[in-house]
């Protein structure tokens, strides 16, 4: 009888030990991106732009060419990489704070220019690495270490909706929001990442994949409760789906 062994994707270092908190979705996101690269057989033409926050640990996991961007500047760095090497697949891996707070200008301009790059944005509605402060995506009423009574629209304003905003840009070719809260959603997220990469390689424009993700440590919830929160509290504010999809005719 053949023994099947659960393998790591080729794009992930063989000796890699994932160091994210228990129940954090980062590890799943990083793995399925690597699976897509392997399945598309494009790892050897890929340049990754890493960012600042928990996403920075990606550096340790991928056996790929990676350049680290300063906080918020991943889409500008990706622009420089892609303009210099237009035949490469270039994607950023950023948190929502990196992408939509400090880096919103770089993100929106790169998308508006239709840079042929893909932004993969992990939205966990708080700043994970620094200890759970309010993020641009923190939902109204959500308690964080800088909104101890819950985010109040009168004081802190409203959460930023990444896909809704990105899809208004004419340069955006593929924009989708997905989740990792079930095996079905993980499979769907993988499909969305693949579509984004295919869109980039077809030269259609910028692509954005927003992934609703857990942060059990800072949410002070169990891994199971964290996925439950995504379904109950985040789905209504951040509906899943494809927000923009240019067909090749529209390019």
């Amino acid at each position, binding site marked *: 009888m053949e023994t099947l062994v659960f393998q790591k994707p080729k794009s992930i270092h063989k000796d890699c030990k994932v160091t994210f908190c228990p129940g954090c979705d980062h590890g799943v996101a990083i793995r399925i991106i690597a699976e897509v690269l392997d399945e598309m057989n494009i*790892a*050897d*033409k*890929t*340049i990754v*732009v*890493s960012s600042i926050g928990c996403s*920075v640990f990606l*550096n340790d996991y*991928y*056996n*790929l*060419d*990676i*350049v*680290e*961007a*300063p906080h918020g*500047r991943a889409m*500008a*760095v*990706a*622009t*420089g*990489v*892609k*303009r*210099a*090497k237009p035949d*490469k697949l270039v994607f950023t891996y950023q948190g929502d704070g990196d992408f939509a707070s400090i880096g919103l*200008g*770089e993100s929106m*301009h790169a998308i508006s220019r239709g840079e042929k790059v893909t932004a993969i944005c992990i939205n966990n509605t708080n700043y994970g690495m620094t200890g759970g402060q309010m993020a641009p995506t923190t939902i109204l009423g959500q308690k964080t270490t800088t909104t101890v009574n819950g985010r109040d629209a009168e004081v802190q304003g409203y959460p930023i909706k990444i896909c809704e905003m990105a899809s208004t840009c004419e340069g955006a070719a593929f924009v989708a929001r997905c989740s990792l809260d079930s095996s079905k959603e993980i499979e769907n997220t993988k499909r969305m990442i693949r579509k984004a990469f295919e869109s980039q390689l077809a030269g259609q424009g910028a692509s954005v994949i927003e992934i609703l993700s857990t942060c059990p440590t800072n949410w002070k919830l169990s891994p199971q409760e964290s996925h439950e929160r995504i379904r109950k509290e985040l789905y209504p504010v951040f509906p899943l789906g494809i927000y923009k999809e240019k067909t090749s005719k529209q390019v």
Partner: protein
Amino acid sequence: MTKTAEKVLLKGNHAIAKAAINAGCQCYFGYPITPQNEIGEYLSVEMPNRGRVFLQAESEIAAINMLLGAAATGTRAMTSSSSLAIALMQEGISYIAADNIPAVVVSVMRAGPALGYIFPSQGDYFQTVKGGGNGDYKVLTLAPSNVQEMIDYTYKAFHLAHKYRTIVFLLADGLLGQMMEPAVLYDYPYEDIDNSSWALDGAKDRPGRWIGSIHRSEEVLERKVLELFAKYDVIKQNEVEYETMLTDDAEILITAFGSVARIAKAAIKKAREAGIKAGLFRPISLWPFPTEELNKMARGKKIVLDIEMNMGQMVEDVKIAVNGEAKVEFFGRPAGFYFTPDEIFEEIKKVMEGLK
């Protein structure tokens, strides 16, 4: 190298842009700011004509990070800007230095602080040489003093950036950027430098490469900084550059860089005609600063007079270099008042009178 080519009338900023093209610059990223706009405007036409990249960034912060991205692929790339906008780039400059990747930044100084105005200035010596970014790093800085040298040192900036995988500044000012004078635009004189051992181009038939600055262990971070400074030691040994004029018998040694050094030369000629033994020591590499060379030169001089278009910045490095071998005085003006040769001559006379 065809340095026999005929002289053509060139604006300083255009000289930089043309030299960048000759140097094989493949990508330019920039955001408009006076007094350096001619660089971007020229390249916006000439780079696409050659199948190269000109990209107007949404901000200087984006521009320096686009440069970082292109540099990480080993591509010859540059940005240009000025003063308050170079201030916005400082985080990216620190990253590029820490990443050991080659990039050229042209800084055409204007008068500050803050918005100030578009007048020429040397107020960003500290910003460039002492660094506005965080942590221990150095910026190799070349200071041209005429339009010909805008070409010479743009070439050298690209060469040194790739030779040492480091960030190199061409530090000019609004006077040099805007003036027109004859110069020879000869071919790029340096050899291509192989970057295949480190540049990012996709991990094909080799392990992945990582370019970044995060090191989550004190030992590793310290080792990385020490490696950076070992490289800086080599740069210090090899790349100090300076110019002297009439120093052998000089009693008063003028120190000045960039456009001021050029004006000082005219003043020194006047002083010599008036019987004052004046000479010039002009640092060209502002970092590495010609510390030992200036120290030797200052020995036996009655006085060192440092002249800058600012309130006294390079003078601190001059004092460190002179190290008590002679008295050091400073003459400077901020806010875009560039000197006439007569003003400097009068100051030389005044300083020499004061010694009696």
